[in-house]
């Protein structure tokens, strides 16, 4: 996970990210629209998104997604941290765009889920 964090210049902001192993996450899914996220079923998937609000966390909770990468330099608020902690969801923030994060993750070996 540290390797991924370095590649996308991310900051862990919630959850014990460093204890996560990269093979816990084989896939990635990118979307800003939460109903798009809810259309599908996920395993070992990280969510890449520019949507930075409570609904991102709630959607991840419903979809059983355990790692969210918040892009575009957005900052999570206290309410997001509270719900993420309750649901055991790890959050990373990065200034990189969704586009760039996807590119970097892919060249690292994270596969598309769909």
């Amino acid at each position, binding site marked *: 996970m540290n390797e991924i964090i370095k590649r996308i210049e991310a900051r862990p902001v919630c959850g014990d990210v460093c204890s996560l192993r990269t093979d816990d996450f084989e896939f990635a899914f990118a979307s800003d629209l939460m109903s798009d996220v*809810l*259309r599908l079923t996920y395993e070992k998937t990280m969510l890449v998104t520019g949507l930075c609000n409570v609904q991102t966390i709630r959607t991840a909770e419903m979809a059983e997604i355990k790692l969210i990468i918040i892009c575009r330099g957005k900052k999570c608020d206290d309410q997001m941290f509270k719900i993420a902690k309750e649901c055991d969801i790890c959050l990373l923030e990065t200034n990189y765009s969704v586009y760039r994060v996807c590119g970097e993750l892919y060249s690292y070996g994270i596969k598309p889920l769909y």
Partner: protein
Amino acid sequence: MEFLFEIEGANFSVAGNASSTIKRALKQRNVDPAKIKRIVVALFEAEINVVAHADHGTIRVLIEDHQVQMFVKDFGPGIEDVKEAMREGYSTASNSVREMGFGAGMGLPNIKRNADVFEIESVKGLGTNAHIIIYL
């Protein structure tokens, strides 16, 4: 087991609380995870619809031995054309709702996909009622 939630229109900061409560309750009852996923997605989308479109509403959830029933009732503009609304991509959401990450026109189709029974009726200018059943 019965739950009743009051849903406030346009309050996105608490939207999803009902679904989260039900998810916990279902986990405690050891319901099959795949069923939990279907139930909470259907419920979440219904909850978001009330928040996104209506003035206010209620959601009643009945967890029974063989099924989970959800009764969603809202007071709001109603759905003019339910058939159209069921089409993926069709949305009447305002720009502010789209900015929240919703309004892509997949809410009702997502409910339908996950439900065993999905009945919806609406009166323009009054509101919408939905009845969702998922068998356990």
